[in-house]
């Protein structure tokens, strides 16, 4: 990997961590774990469409690890990890079908897959089948949050075109 590439990834990672920490300060009106805007994923969605798959995986892995260090919430690590695996697998495949003009659509699927991964992790970790009642709420929140982060990523992408080519 060229140093320039590494530097770009590092900057993206730093930006997404800043967004993550700012979002932590916003009170969440929904009491269900797993439901949140996930603004830091604006960067993830952007990276999926502008970097090679292994670069995106690196970026997200570092992001998740550092985010759990900064938030002090190591219990959430398993959930965000499995969520991200689902999300990245899905989005890296969807990237071949959906072009960048429809980034927000791809982001919706990514968000729903992320929530699916979290749900799967929760079911495995807690061994409580009745948790599945939260899944519909997660899907709805995933669709809305995914569309929002996707649209934001489209704007970011248009702006960044002038800086990074």
């Amino acid at each position, binding site marked *: 990997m060229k140093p320039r590439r590494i530097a770009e990834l590092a900057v993206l990672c730093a930006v997404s961590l800043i967004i993550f920490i700012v979002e932590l300060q916003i009170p969440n009106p929904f*009491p269900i774990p797993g439901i949140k805007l996930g603004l830091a994923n604006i960067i993830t969605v952007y990276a999926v469409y502008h970097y090679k798959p292994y670069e995106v995986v690196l970026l997200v892995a570092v992001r998740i690890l550092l985010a759990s260090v900064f938030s002090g919430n190591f219990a959430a690590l398993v959930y965000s990890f499995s969520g991200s695996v689902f999300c990245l697998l899905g989005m890296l495949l969807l990237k071949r*079908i959906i072009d960048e003009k429809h980034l927000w*659509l791809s982001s919706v699927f990514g968000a729903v897959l992320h929530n699916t991964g979290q749900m799967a992790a929760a079911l495995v970790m807690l061994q409580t089948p009745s948790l599945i*009642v939260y899944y*519909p*709420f997660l*899907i*709805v929140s995933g*669709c809305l949050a995914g569309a929002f982060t996707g649209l934001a990523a489209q704007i970011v992408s248009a702006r960044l075109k002038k800086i990074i080519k």
Partner: protein
Amino acid sequence: MKYKIITLTAVVILLAGIAGSVFVLGSKGGSTVVITQNDRVIREIDLDLAPDETFDVEYGGSKNTIEIKDGKIRVKSAQCPDKTCVHMGWLSSPAMPIVCLPNHLVIKFADNSEDVDALTK
């Protein structure tokens, strides 16, 4: 054309989610309600049999007034700062317990499904 199909898929997923949410919120819990404070069960009430009544639960000098009426239960008034528990209204769904965080109070339908508790019994 391709995007119509993809958009349609996304819309179907969203609608399925909404339908599922409505179903979960609408599904009725049992009739037994448990009131816990600090993970300690303070009262168990069978709403079908309970007479209408109003009583107070206190926590560190701060009171929640709980009302039972026509087989339903709610927090009528509270001395906590945010009053989230009051705004939640009548307890209606097993998925949405009434919670007062400042006073460590939880009102929910008793879990009689095969759950963690069933395993530890």
